């Protein structure tokens, strides 16, 4: 009968020294694990996304129309109010559209991701799911909204001067980079908000300020050349400029803009991933 008591168990006092596997191998392990786990849990992501979209679009025939109505009214009001202020911008509604739709993807994703871990508490405490699933699902839901509203608003803006152009074939690349940037920010905010519950409020206020600091309603060129450099401190500026170039101006963005966007997107994604993964295990204790 191997009836044992805990005192008779072999005391391996080695485990304080063990937790130094070296950061590279730890991160390689995490990346490898995600490469296995995320495809495995893809159906879960798919389900979270499709269910949300179904609730939004299927219950009512006008479902999709309602989600379009909001940005449409917003843009109508904004272009009515600000076209007086910014007379210099031709086809102002189109300009507004080119910057505002990507921006609402960014702020919508980050604000929703702030709550995504807490909102799925019931699931996380009951069954093992890689927690990366939840921010990814939120991002995908917002991405679908972005693509749908981009397409349909573009058609609606046809009478106001929206015209397709050849550089628009690069739009998927710009969206991809922007998604990477957004995902990185979302992961940071999701982690922070799980540990400090009031971060969500802070993020809302911060995004309001950031919105006005980014050339969406106005053009950066309208500011004195001496103060132009301030825009360059704003990481969102580069992405919004890409969208302006592609959608509004219909011109090929400069190579340097692409390069900067790639660097910022990768940096954001890398930092976000590192922060999220390093805290992932502790999250369940903070729900």
């Amino acid at each position, binding site marked *: 009968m191997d*009836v044992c008591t805990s005192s008779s168990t072999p005391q391996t006092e080695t485990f304080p020294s063990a937790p130094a596997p070296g950061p590279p191998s730890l991160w390689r392990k995490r990346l490898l694990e995600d490469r296995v786990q995320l495809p495995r849990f893809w159906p879960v992501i798919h*389900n979270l996304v499709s269910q949300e979209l179904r609730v939004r679009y299927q219950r009512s025939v006008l479902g999709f129309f309602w989600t379009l109505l909001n940005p449409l009214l917003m843009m109508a009001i904004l272009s009515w109010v600000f076209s007086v202020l910014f007379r210099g911008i031709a086809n102002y509604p189109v300009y507004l559209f080119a910057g505002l739709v990507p921006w609402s993807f960014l702020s919508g994703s980050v604000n929703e991701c702030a709550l995504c871990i807490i909102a799925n508490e019931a699931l996380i405490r*009951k*069954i*093992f*799911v890689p927690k990366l699933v939840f921010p990814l699902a939120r991002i995908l839901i917002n991405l679908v909204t972005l693509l749908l509203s981009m397409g349909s608003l573009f058609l609606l803006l046809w009478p106001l001067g929206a015209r397709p152009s050849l550089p628009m074939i690069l739009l998927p690349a710009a969206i991809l980079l922007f998604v990477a940037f957004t995902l990185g920010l979302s992961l940071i905010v999701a982690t922070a908000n799980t540990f400090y*519950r009031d971060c969500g409020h802070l993020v809302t206020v911060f995004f309001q300020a950031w919105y006005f600091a980014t050339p969406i309603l106005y053009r950066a060129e309208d500011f004195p050349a001496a103060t132009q450099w301030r825009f360059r401190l704003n990481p969102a500026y580069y992405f919004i400029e890409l969208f302006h170039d592609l959608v509004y101006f219909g011109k090929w963005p400069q190579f340097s803009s692409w390069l900067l966007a790639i660097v910022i997107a990768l940096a954001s994604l890398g930092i976000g991933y590192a922060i999220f993964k390093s805290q992932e295990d502790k999250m369940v*204790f903070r729900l």
Partner: protein
Amino acid sequence: MPYSSRKKTRWYSDCESHGPGSRNRASSAVPLIELRDVSLRFINYADKQYSFKRAVLDLVLRRASPVPVSEFWALRNINLRINHGERVGIVGGNGAGKSTLLRLLARIYPPSSGTVEVRGNVAPLIEMGAGFNIELSGFDNILYNGAMLGFTRPQMLSKVEGIHEFTGLREFADLPLKYYSSGMYMRLAFAIATEIDPEILIIDEALGVGDAAFQERAKDRIFKLLGRSHAVILVSHDMNSLRQLCTRGLWLRQGQLVADGPIEPIIDQYLAWTHAAKAS
């Protein structure tokens, strides 16, 4: 064995092996579950929703920082190996750490120290409604829950028949889960967890629900699983079903493994201990 080279925290080593081939390969001497010196600590934060505002104020005013007011060791120095084909029953009073141990095996909680190695996929029946969505229909939930357990849509579609067969809920397959009774719910959860043919089945008191006929069939099904060299870990306060189902017993008391051995003596010891505690 050179365990010192192992990582501090390690869960699944090969979680992607579902195939029958990989199971046969694995069914040698390697234990399915191996816990070495596992401890789990819960920290009670004074204010669980510690806010950023307070963190900043604490920093600025140089107040005592986020002091964890108290900590609680839910599990202490657990050493455990579970092999293929073992049916393990866990006994212990309330708050002894039984459910926490199951959650640790199901990968919900990470260990605070020690290593947890679980080889093979785990089907956890720990809490009602884990991995279900009450808005979806019964059929959709089979696919959804299957996805949670790591199975693709085609894989699950091939199992739907068997699940319906066992639950007898075929006519309710299109009904949203929120209209299911708790018994129906539990039957569905149990059927999915066993139909996916997991290497490790974890059940927490789930057998209590459901009528007598279902309980009998559930026990049959567990025995069938064991015929294919799976491990079953069961937590229950129903000593009779533990005696019936399990071969090995674990007794947990205040987060420590007090006894480990064949089920009968463990239950007798445990019952004797409870009576003694009641008498004194």
